[in-house]
């Protein structure tokens, strides 16, 4: 039932940021509702909370700290949204895609490596101890998650014998990759949460260091960073769909709608995890990441490779 993925006119690219931000806003609304529920307030008040946040950040003056590295700081703040948009360019929406690059999987990986620089710049630019420590923490986390993430992305590419996202979707017509490479899927999801500095991996913006890299940003800069974090998280959830969850495949609904539904479901799980688990400290995580997670990812790739060669 799945047709080959077709590349549509680049003019449609104008719409992608809107779709991305709409999904990100929905995620923020869901987050607000969950927070409201734990505080014993009506869910509806929480759903609207992101709009209130946007309004107050638009009204707030942006502040500059003493001897801040303003240029790098602003690049970091604005970059997250840009990276998220660049990520979703290679993600097919049902049968359509903007750019079916022959190295689509690598493209996504390249973009997520950009977040290393961006979070570090946000932490560096403020010229403040808390922000700097937040930047350090993100980098030490990144050293732990990046290699497992790369291997987790290689597994579907090996199975599809292609780095092209369209081929990866086509290879899942019979069986979704999540079924026979669950380890890679779990590692991928964990890494998305980590590179979005989200939930248990949000130590870079931790409460113990007064918000870390967020400690000194205000006004529109803060809005861009917070929106960018949601956007990067959304893009990560969206990429799980073509790579592990069979793209637009599914009964009844049109393919483009399936892509959005699946993306939202993955995103909802990410958001729900946010406040429910304690922080994973980067120094503790490094050990686990290198001794357990990375070998697990390699084993997964090995198993996939053997199956692919054997079939």
């Amino acid at each position: 039932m799945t047709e080959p993925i077709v590349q549509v006119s680049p003019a449609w690219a104008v719409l992608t940021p809107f779709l991305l931000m709409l999904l990100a806003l929905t995620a923020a609304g869901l987050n607000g509702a969950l927070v409201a529920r734990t505080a014993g307030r009506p869910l509806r008040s929480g759903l609207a909370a992101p709009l209130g946040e946007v309004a107050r950040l638009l009204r707030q003056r942006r502040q500059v700290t003493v001897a801040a590295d303003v240029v790098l700081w602003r690049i970091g703040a604005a970059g997250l949204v840009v990276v998220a948009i660049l990520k979703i360019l290679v993600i097919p929406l049902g049968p359509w895609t903007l750019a079916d690059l022959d190295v689509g999987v690598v493209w996504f990986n390249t973009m997520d490596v950009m977040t290393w620089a961006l979070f570090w710049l946000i932490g560096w630019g403020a010229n403040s101890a808390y922000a700097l420590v937040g930047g350090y923490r993100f980098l030490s986390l990144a050293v732990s998650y990046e290699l497992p993430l790369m291997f987790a992305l290689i597994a579907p590419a090996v199975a599809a014998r292609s780095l092209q996202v369209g081929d990866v979707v086509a290879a899942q017509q019979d069986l979704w990759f999540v079924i026979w490479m669950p380890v890679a899927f779990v590692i991928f999801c964990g890494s998305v949460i980590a590179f979005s500095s989200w939930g248990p991996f949000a130590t870079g913006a931790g409460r113990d260091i007064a918000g870390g890299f967020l400690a000194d940003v205000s006004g529109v800069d803060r809005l861009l960073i917070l929106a960018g974090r949601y956007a990067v998280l959304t893009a990560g959830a969206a990429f799980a769909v073509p790579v592990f969850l069979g793209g637009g495949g599914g009964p009844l609904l049109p393919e483009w709608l399936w892509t959005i539904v699946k993306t939202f479901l993955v995103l909802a799980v990410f958001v729900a995890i946010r406040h429910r688990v304690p922080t994973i400290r980067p120094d503790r995580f490094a050990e686990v990441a290198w001794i357990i997670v990375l070998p697990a990812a390699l084993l997964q790739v090995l198993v996939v490779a053997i199956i692919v060669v054997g079939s």
Partner: protein
Amino acid sequence: MGLTSVLARWASKRVHVLIIEVPGWGASRMLLEAELDRRGWAVALSPADADLLAVCGMPGEELRAACDFVWNQLPGPRARVNVTGSGSLSTLLNEASAHLGDDSAQREDARSRSQNTVAEDSAPDAGEHDGMAPEEMDHGSMDHGMDHGEMDMPMPGGIPLAEGGDDRDGLEMDFLTVPFGPVMPHWPAGLVVDCVLQGDVVVSAQARVLEAVSAPTEVSTEEMTYLVEARLRIIRLCDHASQLLALAGWQTAAQNARRLRDDARWSADIAEHVAPLDRLRRRVERSVLLRWSLKGISLGGISVGRPVGGTDALAEAGAATPADQAGVAIRDRLIGWLHEAAALAATSSDTRSPAAGDLDRAREARDLLGALPALLRGTELGTARLLIAGLGLDTAALAPAHERTHD
């Protein structure tokens, strides 16, 4: 004007409040936090994140200076309130919210601020911005407080460069002198820890407490007369647990502890809280991730955990308090708090239990404050925060009117 007023209206639904607690005014802070929860307002983690500065209590001279300094760091629109009782809390916040939404007043405020800055910049030798004295308490942008030694070094923005020194691995790394507190989320009221950092590792630390000008007497005491000692103890234990859980990054559990704390203040029958407190304790005990995350973080040889009130009751209930053991793990401390709170709630049917004297509490607080520097030395910042929270330091118990310094 239509758009700005719409923005102002939306923004007023989600005010971020930076709370500064003065030692001894914990009750005001807790009431404020409960009110913020009810309104759906958020607690700000840093001044840059805040619209409203709420000072809970009557700060002494130095703490007041710190408050003024932080007030300067609020980006604006901004408002400031002083919370000293519960009666007018709602009105106070409504007024602050209205002030935040008042565009012309905020514009006037912004204009006067920028004029101040210009005046300072044009003054000769005005190296530092924001009218900041080098000794003043900073937080949020902690970089200002760096070493003032070498004046012939290049000074970007009027700040001398950090000096290098060998770190714990024998590599050269910059020393950064950073005062922690008195304005920090989940931080003992009025505590200042002057740290020397290398990266995010504490090389050395000095602890002191900024005092209140007066203890809460009028309104809050009236508020508290019906709260007997055991209940106060439960509230304090839940508050400690909530702070520690929040620092461990577990927001839902921290929120849970906070609600139990607030319920304990208002509910008629404290015995109702036994079950929820036990549930929370079991939840904390079950969490594998928390166990792993807090593994190996312990208070060393510091003797902590002497229950202040209701010791006999506790022994009857068979509570395992980690009293006077060597090396109390932070996780055990947390579970011990919740256990003690549940035991107190079960046994005290609001009868006045034998309270430890103020002298005892003051001595314990002084001992803990004295032990702090040795405890923090060589720890990573996140660990240091957990350790400080794990002490359950009661800064209000310290003798008022003068500062104490330990190193």
